[in-house]
């Protein structure tokens, strides 16, 4: 039966379209987010995709197949395509038919729901060597060290195992959350969605909790959620982050929000290698390869202490060696943090198998509506290419065209005019080409931060930016991720690859943190019109619009450009 007031359109290709303006949108959104991955969220119709992993995530969170179908059927405008119910039943029904438990005499037990499934597993070549022996018609013995690899292979084979083997408690560590921030003295209280995410992860300390991924948008306070999760677990914790700056900001946050002392928090990176009850390490140092000795010596950090929890910041960037190391620490609790589960390398299955299922997914629109993140306006400013550069551009080889367009000298004046629009607002000027970033910084008389900037200088600049003594900073792509600039409200992108979804998300994330006053942020991209840069910008435009951001195009090619 057709019910046009319902919000869902379920399509045979397993996409689910959701009409945002439907009166039942708010009702269906939390249910749908549990078993479908949000792919696009332009302003009116969001696209979710049903996939095996998304269904298994839902099953892992306790949702039944009937509930999934109930949501689809109950909220759909049109009858479900004939293929969907059967596929959902088959796929979702696979979760829970295999359980990984701790064996009484040591090791693990893989228990199948029926003999047929057990026989199928026994015959699967990828599982050879991982299933030690068959104990009964439905149970296999599994060595402890194979726990991670077995889960990966089972997911690949389409038979996910529910890991109920539990965790090692780890070295106990009492982590108390402060009532007020140590630095600012402002009250520190977990927001509702942060508390809910922590509970979804921890599950009261039971076997069904303790491993999983929390998906929160940029600016939603992923670090805070992780710290609260650490407090809930109450054990020594290894935090893995993307770079040194991020590591230090993590440490600062830990000191600011918890009662941990300086000695209890260690930094483990290229320059410092302190292992403490809470250790913050970088992916780079873990994957450092010692050419002389061979191998990656710092991966041993995973076993240097009896960690009760391992936190993976920006889990969508997790490098392959860390995945492999993670396969060997499946007895430890694991928490993944990300703004997007989309991995450019397509390793979503590994994240599911080795880190855990998605435990919480917070919509940024909801956060924006509640004022937890700033309302961002994305603008593309199109500039004319100077006439004297037009012929050189047209005759340049294809690979040089982008740079010629990106380094349009007219951009400097445009930056000035944009900064004049937002006088005094903390402004980041972001560029792909170092020379361009430096030139603009010099012309505007503002500092710049590039790859060769020393760590000490970086921190000085960040501190000044935070304190408000610096209102503008030109940065190269080093600022793409994990650079916490809480007061930036304007970003002006003078050049970029415009092709990477991650880069765009990360750059935009720099300005999403809540702002005082009207809580708005502006993200400008300067684009040379009628060049390849405009083509790249089109991809960026689509991506940002798919993410639901407001997008404007300002054409400044006319002599009378807008003020």
């Amino acid at each position: 039966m057709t019910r046009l007031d319902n919000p869902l359109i379920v399509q045979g290709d397993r996409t689910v379209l959701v009409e945002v303006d439907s009166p039942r949108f708010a009702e269906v959104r939390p249910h749908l987010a549990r078993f479908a991955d949000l792919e696009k969220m332009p302003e009116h119709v969001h696209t979710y995709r049903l996939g095996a992993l998304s269904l298994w995530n839902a099953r892992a969170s306790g949702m039944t197949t009937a509930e999934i179908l109930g949501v689809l059927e109950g909220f759909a405008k049109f009858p479900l395509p004939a293929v969907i119910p059967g596929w959902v039943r088959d796929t979702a029904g696979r979760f829970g038919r295999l359980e990984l438990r701790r064996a009484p005499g040591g090791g693990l037990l893989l228990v199948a729901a029926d003999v047929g499934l057990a026989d199928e597993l026994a015959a699967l070549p990828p599982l050879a060597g991982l299933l030690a022996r068959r104990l009964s018609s439905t149970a296999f013995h599994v060595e402890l060290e194979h726990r991670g690899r077995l889960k990966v292979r089972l997911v690949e084979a389409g038979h996910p195992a529910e890991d109920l083997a539990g965790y090692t408690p780890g070295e106990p560590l009492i982590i108390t959350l402060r009532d007020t921030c140590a630095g600012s003295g402002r009250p520190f209280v977990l927001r509702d969605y942060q508390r809910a995410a922590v509970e979804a992860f921890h599950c009261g300390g039971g076997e069904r909790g303790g491993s999983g991924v929390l998906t929160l948008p940029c600016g939603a306070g992923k670090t805070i959620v992780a710290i609260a999760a650490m407090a809930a677990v109450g054990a020594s914790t290894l935090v893995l982050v993307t770079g040194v700056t991020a590591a230090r900001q993590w440490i600062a946050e830990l000191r600011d929000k918890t009662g941990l002392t300086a000695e209890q928090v260690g930094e483990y990176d290229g320059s410092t290698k302190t292992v403490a009850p809470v250790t913050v390490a970088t992916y780079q140092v873990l994957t450092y390869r010692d050419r002389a000795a061979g191998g990656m010596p710092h991966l041993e950090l995973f076993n240097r202490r009896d960690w009760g929890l391992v936190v993976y910041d920006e889990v969508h960037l997790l490098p392959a060696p860390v995945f492999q190391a993670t396969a060997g620490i499946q007895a430890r609790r694991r928490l993944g943090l990300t703004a997007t589960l989309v991995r450019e390398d397509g390793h979503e299955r590994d994240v599911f198998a080795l880190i855990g299922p998605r435990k919480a997914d917070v919509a940024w629109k909801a956060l924006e509506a509640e004022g937890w993140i700033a309302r961002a306006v994305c603008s593309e400013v199109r500039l004319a290419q100077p006439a004297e550069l037009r012929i050189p551009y047209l005759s340049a080889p294809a690979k040089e065209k982008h740079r010629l367009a990106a380094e349009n000298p007219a951009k400097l004046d445009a930056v000035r005019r944009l900064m004049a629009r937002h006088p005094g607002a903390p402004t980041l000027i972001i560029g792909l080409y170092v020379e361009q970033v430096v030139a603009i910084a010099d012309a505007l008389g503002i500092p710049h931060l590039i790859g060769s900037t020393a760590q000490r200088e970086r921190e000085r600049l960040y501190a000044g930016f935070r304190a408000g003594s610096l209102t503008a900073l030109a940065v190269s792509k080093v600022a793409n991720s994990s650079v916490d600039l809480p007061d930036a409200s304007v970003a002006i992108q003078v050049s970029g690859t415009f092709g990477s979804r991650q880069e765009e998300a990360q750059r935009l994330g720099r300005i999403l943190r809540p702002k005082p006053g009207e809580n708005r942020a502006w993200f400008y991209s300067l684009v040379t019109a009628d060049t390849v840069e405009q083509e790249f910008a089109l991809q960026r435009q689509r991506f940002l619009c798919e993410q639901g951001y407001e997008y404007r195009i300002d054409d400044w090619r006319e002599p009378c450009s807008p003020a």
Partner: protein
Amino acid sequence: MLARVNWEAACPLLPRWLALPREVRLALLLVGSREEGRLPREHQVALADAGLLRRGSGLHLATGVESLLGLLRTAAVAETYQDPTTAGSLALAGEVVGAHLPAIRTRFAAMGIRWHRDDEVLAAASSGELARLAAEAAVWGWNDLAGINLTLVSHEHLAAHRRSGQAMLSWIVAQPQAPTWEAAVAHCPDPAHLPLVLRWATQCLVLIPQLAVQDGVLRLGQPRAWYAHRNRPAPTRPSPSPGVVGEQAWRLDDLVAVCAALGAKPARINKDWTLGVRDLRALAALLPVADARLVPVLDPELRASEAISVGQRLELLTTDGRQRRLALTAAGRRWLAQPRDERRRLILDRLRAACQGELDLRRYDGQSGGGTYPRHLDARHPEPWRLLRDALRDLGETTWTLAQALPWWSRTLQPHASPADERAVGLLCQQLVLDVAVAYGAVAVGEAPGGGLLLRLTAAGRYVCGLDAAYTPAPDLAPVRPLIVQADHTIAFLAPAPALEAEIGRFAERLPGASGVGVLFRLTREAVQAGAIAGISSEEALRILIDATAKPLPDNVTHELRGWFGGVRRASAALRLVVTCPDEATAARIVEAARPDAERLGPLLVGLPPDRDPLVLARRLAKTGIALAVGLDEDEDEDG
């Protein structure tokens, strides 16, 4: 089979045959077979005495008996698939009246029926009242009525009798009841030869003498059942039936989708002029999803093929055999660039012309279901649309069910048809309505409250039928805005809107596998520019989107659309004969010498029309002291 029977020869033997005992008659059938040796002697004698058998070196059939047996076998064959009574009647009719195929054809032609095949004739002849009434003729005795006289007459005389018979028949047929013998004879233009006239008319089954049993009066006329059918009560006019109808010119939408796709990228055709399977599938995938109530269950590929076929007949599409491709024509490009109503008007004009008899409709559109029409009906109604037009005009814009209308239409189209023919005509009408009238939006369709199809003539239908002099598209009473254009350049359909799908498909890229509802299109520069090249303007595209979208058009989309449309430039290519000069002065001299066709293409380049003979030019320039090398060896040049 009947045609091979020479009744003239068989007829004199028939009384003798009928006089023989049944077992003797059966024995005759064995003569000439391998069983003839078992023929009892007394039967041989009886047959010989009757003049049906002659003796010689064996048993031989007498002259004319072969024809008699042929007649009997025909009856026997008929008996195998018809009920015995009818077959018996047919046999009797054949035996007595001497029917043969041309005569039956003539007879049916007089009734407005044309036949294609002998088996159809036979089936018809043996199936209804005709045979029974032919039997009546036997009761009267053909010989007595026609006053058979086998004297030879000239061809001219026979032709005269035939004309007289036809004239008399015309009068008889026009009577509501069979006239009396006297009245009929009084209308014979050639009373002197009345027996011959009657013989012709009766032999050709154009006239059946009938006995009015009630009053013992001899009448001449059509079979009684024919009069009963002719004088049957008038059918009930379809009464208005309440219900909601919707129209969808789905074939027009198909045509737009196919033309738009082929305008953007021509399809390759095979050596046998058919479209490649892959291209056909790709086109089929572009077709809008149509309301299942409106569109017959057609395979999308068949729909695409039909759209191509219509497009070719309208000269919107053309096949280029040399380049082996199917592409949009210039006319097609102009048509595609028209607003929807204008595009539709062009199609409706063709239908209207066909209804007015100015265009051969069968050539215009007989594709779907054309092969399923009863052949004799198709042939019998060379202009079915004109007839259907009258029916539709009479129905007007009331809403009626198809089932209700069928018998009424049938009667309108063929007042004197038999009930079986009425059903067949009804089916024909139904197919024409659904395949053409509905498909082009001339008739709107809905679901009747009690089930079945609900029909109503649309504004387009009124125009096609000639009720309106001009086509005025009906305004949307309740404008539905079924789509949303999003800032990421996607277009989502929240409800099926096939016509809009076709419209938007002209300048937007359909997402793979998308149709019906959901995110169906993406506005891309390539698709927009293809639309622009096809003649669509940015304002028209924006108007279509703005009129149909439930939400305001995002600013960035509007900006990009305008930019993409504005980025299209039209350039022309032409062959030129290019002369390369050593310096600008020489170039100027050549332009001067080659006036008026020469033009400067650049400082050192001079262009000339491509048909200019370079050798002639070389001679002309040589007179001004310029030696022009024309790409040949100097020797050849000199030779030339």
